[in-house]
C-alpha cells in the first residue's frame, strides 16, 4: 500500500504509529533547522532601525507640532550616538510669498565641480557608496543633446575650450512626475515649490527614480557612510539629516539654508558666479530679473515638467541698436 492509498483509505488520517511520528518530528526539526540557517544573516541586522516608535511614526503632514518635536528629539539622539555631535536639527516650514527658482549661466560655468563637492559636504550625503546630487556634463560646443555629454571628464585644467559645461540637479518641477508616481505620498511639492522627501516614510520602490527625466534622484543602495568629522550639524527634517539604507534622496535647494534666507551651498562655492538663486515672486530678485531679461531655457521642455531650474546664455543679444528689417519674400505673404 502506498502512503497515498493509506491516506485515502483512512480518510486523510494515516495511522499514527511510532515510526511515522518519529519520521514526522525529524522532518519538522530538520526543516526548522534549515529555515533558521537560511535566515541566519539576519543576525547582522541593525535592529535599532526597527522600533515600535518608528513603526508607528506618522506621515510628515499628519504630525502635530509635539509629534514632530518628539521625532526631532529622537533623531538628534540617534545622530549624537552615531556621529558624536549634537545636531541643530529642526523642521523648517516654507515661507509665505516665496517661490524658489534657480538660474544657471551656461556661458560662465567652467565645469570645476566645486558645486558637486560643496553639496556633498553640506547635505551629509554618503561618501561610500558615493552619492552626489549634482552631475556636471561636459558638452561639445554646438550640441544640446545630452547623449553627447561626458560624465566622467577628467582634465588637469578646466574649462576645455572646445566644450561647455552643464550642471544638472533636481529641477524642482512645478509638474513633478516623481510626486505623481509615489504610491505612498512620501514625496511632495511644498508651497515654495520645493519637492521634498520624508525619508522616514519612503518605502524604497524607486518608481520616482524611474519617472524623473533629469536623473535627479538617488537611492541608498547600502547604509550611507559619512565620516564623523565631516558631519554638518545644521540640519532640517526634510533636507540634510542623515538618511538610512533603502530610501530615496535628492537635491532640495538646501532647505536648511534657503528657508532661513541664505543661499544654497552650490551657489556660494561657485568661483565664477554662474549660479543664481532666489524668489521669483519678488520682481526685484536677481532670478526674476534673469528670467525676464535673459535668453532662458529649460531642459527637456517637451516632457512638460515645468522645471524651476533654468539655464541661460550670455548677455542680451541681439542688442536693440543692431535692429534689422525682415527680408521681404517675393510672391508670398503672411496668411
Amino acid at each position, binding site marked *: 500500500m502506498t*502512503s*497515498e492509498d493509506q*491516506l*485515502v483509505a*483512512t*480518510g*486523510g*488520517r494515516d495511522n499514527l504509529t511510532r515510526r511515522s511520528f518519529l519520521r514526522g518530528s525529524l522532518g519538522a526539526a530538520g*526543516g526548522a533547522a*534549515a*529555515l533558521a*540557517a*537560511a*535566515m*541566519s*544573516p*539576519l543576525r547582522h*541586522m541593525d535592529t535599532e532601525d*526597527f522600533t515600535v516608535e518608528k*513603526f508607528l511614526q*506618522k*506621515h510628515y503632514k499628519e504630525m502635530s507640532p509635539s509629534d514632530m518635536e518628539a521625532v526631532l528629539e529622537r533623531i538628534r539622539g540617534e545622530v549624537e550616538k552615531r556621529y558624536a555631535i549634537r545636531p541643530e536639527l529642526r523642521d523648517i516650514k516654507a515661507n509665505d510669498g516665496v517661490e524658489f527658482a534657480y538660474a544657471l549661466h551656461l556661458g560662465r560655468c567652467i565645469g570645476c565641480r566645486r558645486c558637486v563637492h560643496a553639496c556633498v559636504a553640506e547635505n551629509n550625503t554618503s561618501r561610500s557608496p558615493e552619492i552626489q546630487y549634482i552631475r556636471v*556634463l561636459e558638452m561639445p560646443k554646438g550640441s544640446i*543633446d*545630452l*547623449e*553627447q*555629454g561626458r*560624465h566622467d571628464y577628467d582634465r588637469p585644467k578646466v574649462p576645455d575650450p572646445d566644450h561647455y559645461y552643464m550642471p544638472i540637479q533636481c529641477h524642482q518641477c512645478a509638474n513633478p*512626475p516623481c510626486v*505623481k*508616481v*509615489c*504610491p*505612498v*505620498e512620501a514625496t511632495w511639492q511644498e508651497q515654495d515649490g520645493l519637492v521634498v522627501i520624508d525619508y522616514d*516614510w*519612503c*518605502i*524604497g*520602490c*524607486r*518608481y520616482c*527614480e*524611474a*519617472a*524623473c*527625466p*533629469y*536623473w535627479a534622484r538617488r*537611492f541608498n*543602495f*547600502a547604509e550611507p557612510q559619512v565620516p564623523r568629522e565631516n558631519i554638518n550639524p545644521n540640519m532640517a527634517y526634510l533636507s540634510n539629516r542623515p538618511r538610512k*539604507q*533603502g*530610501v530615496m534622496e535628492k537635491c532640495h535647494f538646501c532647505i536648511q539654508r534657503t528657508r532661513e534666507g541664505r543661499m544654497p551651498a552650490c551657489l556660494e562655492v561657485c568661483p565664477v558666479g554662474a549660479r543664481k538663486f532666489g524668489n521669483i515672486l519678488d520682481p526685484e530678485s536677481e532670478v526674476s530679473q534673469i528670467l525676464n531679461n535673459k535668453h532662458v531655457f529649460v531642459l*527637456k521642455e517637451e*516632457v*512638460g*515638467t515645468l522645471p524651476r531650474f533654468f539655464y541661460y546664455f550670455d548677455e542680451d543679444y541681439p542688442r536693440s541698436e543692431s535692429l534689422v528689417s525682415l527680408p521681404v519674400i517675393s510672391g508670398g505673404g503672411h496668411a
Partner: protein
Amino acid sequence: MKMYLRFLWRCFRLSFVGDWRYYAWMLLLSVIVLLGLNAYAKQLVYGLVTTGMTDQVSWGLYIANFTYLVGMAAAAVMVVIPVYIYGRRELHDLVIFGELFAVVAIIMCLLFVQVDLGRPDRFMHMLWRFNFPVSMLTWDVIALGGYLLLNLHICGYLIYCAYRGVHPSRRFYIPFVFIAIAWAISIHTVTAFLFVGLGGRPFWNAAIIAPRFLASAFAAGPAFIILTLQVIRRYAGYHVGDDALKLLRNIVTIALTVNMFLLICELFTEFYADSAHIVSIKYLFFGLHGHYGLVPWIWTATVLNSIALFILYLPFRRSLRFMNIACVCMIVGIWIEKGMGLVVPAFIPSPLGELVEYQPTLNETLVCLGIWAFGLLLYTIFVRISVPVLTGRVTADDASESHSVPR
C-alpha cells in the same frame, strides 16, 4: 465552520503525502526556496547593493519577473473564457487548474515587489497614505489584490463543493468568473500603464506596450498551462483530454502571432523614423557605443519566439512533442522579452545620456529562483490537494466516517 476547518486540516495533511518522486521534487524546491531566503536575508541586511541595480538602472530582474508573472496570472482567463463564454463544458475542471495557477502567479508577483523594496518593513504605509488614483502603482496594488481574492474565492469554492459532494451553486461563482475575466485584462493593462505613463522614458512611453503585454501574456501563460496539464495528466493521475490541449494551442498560436505582428510594428516605427528616441531600442537590438549587454538576450528571445511560431504553423504541431518544444521556446522567449527586453533597456542610456549596463548578481538571481521555486512548490501543493478532491477520492463523507473512529 468546523467542517471547513477540518477540510483545511486535511488539505494540509494531504500536502505532505505522496510517492518518492513527489518527495524528491518537493525537497528540491524547498532547498531552492531556502537558498533564496538566505540570499534575501543578506539583501535585507546589506541593502539592495547586493543586486546589480544602480541609480542608472534602478529596476532589474525583480521588476522584470514581476511584469512577466502578472501576464502569466492574467493568462489564466484564456482557459476560463472558452468554458464560460463559449460553453465548452467538458473543460470545466481545467478552469480550476488555470485559476490556481493565477493565484500562485499573483502571490509570486507580490513577493517580487516585496523583495524589490528598499524598506519592506514600511509596506504598511500603503494603507495609511495611499496615493490613489494618481500613482499607477496603487492601481496595480488594487488590481493584483482584487484578482487574488477573486481567484481564491472561485477555486476555493469549487474545490470545497467537490469535497462536500454538492453541486456548486452558480450564483456563488459565475458572477465572479465574469468579473475575473475582465479583471484579468485589467491587471496586465494597469501593469503596462505603470511603465507607459512615464514621459521621461521614451522607450516605455508608447501606446503599443499594453497591447503587446496582453498578446505576449496570452501566449506564454497558456503555453505554461499546456505543459502543467501534461504533467498533471502524467503524474497526478487526472484525466486531461487532448481537446483541451488543442484548444489552448490554438489560443497560443493566435496570441503569439499578434505579439510578433506588434513587434514588427514597433520596430518599424522606431527604426524607419530613426529619431533620437530610438537610442534605447538601438542599444537593445544592436548595442550602443561598444556596449552590447542586452543584444544576445533579445536575439535569443526573438529567435525562440520565431521558432515557436514556425512550429505552431506547420502540420507537425499536432505532435505533442513539437507543441511542447514550441511552448518551452515561447515561455523562455517571452520571459526574456519582458524582462531584459522591456524593463532594463528603458534605463539605458540614463535620462542624462549615461551608458551604464546592468548585470544581475548571484544573490539577486538566487532570490528570484527562490521565489520561482516557492511558486512551483505552492502550485504542486494546490494540485496535490485538488486532484484527489476533484476525482472524489477525498470527500467530506470519508472524513466523518473516520471521525467516528476513536483515536
